[in-house]
């Protein structure tokens, strides 16, 4: 039963793992930014006065929030190319799937933040003669953004964890490269354990950073 651990396999081949980690960072940052853009866009559609815009946006947001990420990745990678007649590489497919799904979650955060601002704030601004845009920029958004930051960070954390699912369509992120390496060397125990611990350290660091930002915001409010 006793297993002979030998982590030298990991260290001798760390190059491919680092490459994978770079891949993870690339897809995570790209889809985070694109996701925020998509989120702003979907949120403004959903909050629009025109039902022709708000109803389809609501349906899309709900559908993307209520279906598994893995299914969306597979759909974009295998099905979408047939529909639009364009070949997508794993990075492009992942970018579309991630930014659409996290965009939907972000949209709900934006909407929730704006709608959480008390009615009287809108009325106060209006009575000062501000236009809609000015009201948004000077009164509503400064208050709303603070409330949005914690859920936005939580969602971004989920996004980073979700990037591992790109391995299923052979995008070389850290997990995929680790899987390739462990099947080449027949050393899944060391390589997978190392990979899991690496993710743990990386994500703990990120969640620590996020918590620091959160407490700073709390303090700034007082």
């Amino acid at each position, binding site marked *: 039963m006793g297993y002979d651990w030998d982590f030298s396999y990991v260290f001798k081949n760390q190059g491919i793992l680092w490459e994978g980690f770079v891949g993870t960072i690339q897809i995570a940052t790209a889809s985070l930014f694109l996701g925020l853009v998509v989120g702003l866009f979907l949120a403004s559609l959903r909050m629009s006065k025109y039902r022709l815009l708000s109803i389809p946006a609501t349906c899309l947001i709900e559908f993307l929030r209520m279906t598994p990420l893995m299914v969306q990745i597979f759909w974009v990678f295998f*099905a979408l190319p047939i529909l639009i007649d364009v070949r997508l590489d794993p990075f492009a497919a992942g970018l579309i799937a991630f930014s659409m799904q996290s965009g939907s979650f972000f949209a709900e955060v934006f909407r929730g933040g704006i709608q959480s601002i008390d009615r009287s704030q809108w009325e106060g601004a209006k009575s000062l003669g501000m236009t809609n845009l000015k009201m948004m920029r000077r009164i509503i958004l400064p208050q709303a953004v603070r409330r949005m930051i914690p859920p936005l960070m939580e969602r971004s954390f989920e996004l980073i964890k979700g990037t591992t699912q790109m391995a299923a369509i052979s995008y070389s992120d850290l997990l995929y490269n680790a899987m390739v390496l462990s099947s080449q060397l027949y050393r899944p125990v060391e390589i997978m354990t190392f990979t899991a611990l690496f993710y743990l350290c990386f994500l703990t660091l990120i969640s620590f950073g996020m918590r620091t930002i959160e407490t700073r915001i709390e303090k700034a409010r007082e």
Partner: protein
Amino acid sequence: MIEYEWKFREVLEYWPAFLNGMALTAQLSLILLIAAILGGVIVGSARYSKNRFFNWPATFFIEAFRNTPVFVQIIWFFFAFPILIGVQMEGFYAALLGIGLNMIAYSAEIFRAGIQSIERGQWEAGRAIGMNYFQSMRRVVLPQAIRRMIPAFANRVIELVKSTSIASTIAVGELLYQGHQLANTIYRPMETYTIVAVLFFLMIYPLALLTYFLEKKLNVDMRSN
């Protein structure tokens, strides 16, 4: 752009495959739900305990599992764990272990936060009328805390059902896996994956409606109290 000819009807003739997939997705979800509740209560109580002997390992467990991707956990249990313990393991059990432990960590935090959110005064009131710790827990604190846990937990259950689809990567024959196999045999990925997505939506959306309903109802109840 080439006009694409949709052939949903042809693909739907393979409905037994979709149905089998849905059955396994439901089975996985149900087992995981029970594990999340039981495990969440046990680990959450340990995390809540003031005794370091319980508190530290529980905190470590929760943090470790919440700060690693669930996919990595599944892969670890599928490829590494069997070698370590010297036992063959089916994908089904690796998926249960990976997703299950992850879900337990999340529900433990929900359980602990729920209990901690109950004001001190409620404990003191229980004590004042002669209840011991367990009596006040069971009769005073838990009934209030559970209400506060329900919306967060319901959200977690949605995540749980969604994450079962990851098991498809280790050949567990749930809905996405069945779709994947079918798409590869009949070369109709467009229709097949669309049907898979819609079926997942149909399984998950009722849970979302239930969550919205519970959130509203419990909020109203709390205000009227």
